[in-house]
């Protein structure tokens, strides 16, 4: 009867080698190591003998290099192939159920949730230029007059955790700094779209009569209130 060969479980040293190959510093204590090894699907599968060292490398490169199977196969050292063949090997590795399973779990863990996306949009929409500037008072050396100067202050932005809201940063030939924040209008539009504000049928409809009622002058409003009270009291 055919007996499936069971691959031996890798030792801590093997896994550390793998992490090193991935440029991950693994000088950590046993408890943390166990946690990393048991929660990271790639390392877990490698320790459990489900995938090879090369496949584990392939997964890491595939995830960190824009999902290019050929490049990941090349980086994972599938040697002896012509340049064009890496793509074929990479695609065949991707078809393995264990690899697909690990990839889907890794991608799900890395992907942003809708709440995270919304939070990001709202941070962009609410970005404040003053978080990137500092006002300093200077004295004119010629006249002695005090004047205010607005200066870019990226250290302040970093301290406030706002640097990720920056889209472009440029230092000019004369040393002047210019930068651009991510598009606030676009972020607002995306939030409005998420809230369904552009869907005509979902728009809040307020009867014109109610708007008229609330636009009354204080005198008219008091008269209407009196009228409502008498209508409420009346039987018909």
């Amino acid at each position: 009867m055919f007996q499936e060969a069971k691959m031996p479980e890798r030792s801590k040293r093997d896994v550390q080698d793998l992490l090193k190959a991935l440029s991950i510093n693994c000088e950590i204590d046993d408890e943390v190591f166990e946690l990393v090894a048991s929660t990271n699907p790639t390392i877990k599968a490698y320790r459990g003998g489900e995938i090879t060292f090369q496949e584990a490398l392939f997964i890491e490169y595939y995830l960190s290099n824009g999902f290019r199977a050929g490049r990941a196969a090349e980086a994972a050292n599938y040697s002896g192939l012509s340049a064009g063949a890496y793509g074929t090997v990479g695609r065949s590795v991707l078809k393995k159920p264990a690899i697909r399973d690990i990839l889907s779990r890794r991608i799900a863990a890395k992907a942003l949730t809708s709440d995270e996306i919304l939070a990001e949009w709202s941070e962009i929409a609410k970005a404040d230029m003053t978080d990137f500037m500092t006002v300093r008072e200077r004295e004119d050396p010629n006249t002695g007059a005090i004047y205010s100067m607005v200066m870019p202050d990226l250290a302040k932005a970093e301290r406030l955790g706002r640097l990720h809201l920056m889209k472009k940063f440029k230092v000019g030939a004369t040393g002047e700094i210019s930068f651009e924040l991510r598009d606030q209008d676009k972020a607002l539009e995306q939030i409005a779209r998420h809230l369904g504000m552009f869907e005509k049928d979902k728009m809040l409809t307020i009867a014109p009569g109610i708007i008229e009622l609330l636009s009354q002058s204080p005198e008219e409003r008091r008269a209407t209130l009196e009228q409502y009270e008498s209508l409420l009291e009346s039987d018909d």
Partner: protein
Amino acid sequence: MLTDREEAALLLIQKERLDEEYAANPWKFFCQQVRTVDESQHITEQSRDRIYNWPRHHQYLRELLAVLQNEPLVGVPKSRRMMVSWLLSAYFVHDARYHPNSAIFYMSETEQKSAFAVDKRCRFIEEHLRDPAFRLPIKTMKTKTGLIGHITYPNDSYIWALASGGDVLRQYTATKIFVDECEFQAEAPAVVRAALPMVQNGAQLVLASSSDGPIGILAELADACGVRSYKDVRRLVA
């Protein structure tokens, strides 16, 4: 002393209270808010646009409303210009406004005739309520003839003009069906047959018509109830 904001909030609360009263008391809603139009009237100093307040002095309308509120199957043998159609239109508008997801069918001999009633009675009532704050934003759809034949309320209730026919009715589920001038509709018996299963499940069927002799469906129903003339009505009431 209330602030502007508080006064506006109070106004809305009072309006809501009135709306609640109107929901529970259709007659109060008719008397305080509904207006009618009488195209046959001469223009006078009092009414330059032929628009009149609800005729609260017609007690028979109040009595008929009580019947409508309590009976699932109602026949109304009537004569012309009694404002029965206006009462039924106002009754349906009230039902659509205050009861979500009501499906009300207005059925006349032709679609054009029923659309006339939906447009010139139901829509008119809704859009000419005495206090504009009570007017609801209704969606309307026109028939081929250009009259409004379908009114949808924000609570998804609707009033729909249909041409007479049992098969027409068989396709839909109704909350209320009004067969206007049923004695002049050849399809009226088929309509009643199609509507009865719905009535058994809680819908309301209202037949109203002026007389076309002793052979109409309403005349037969009245005959079955022992009513052949007004004398019989007086006898039964006594």
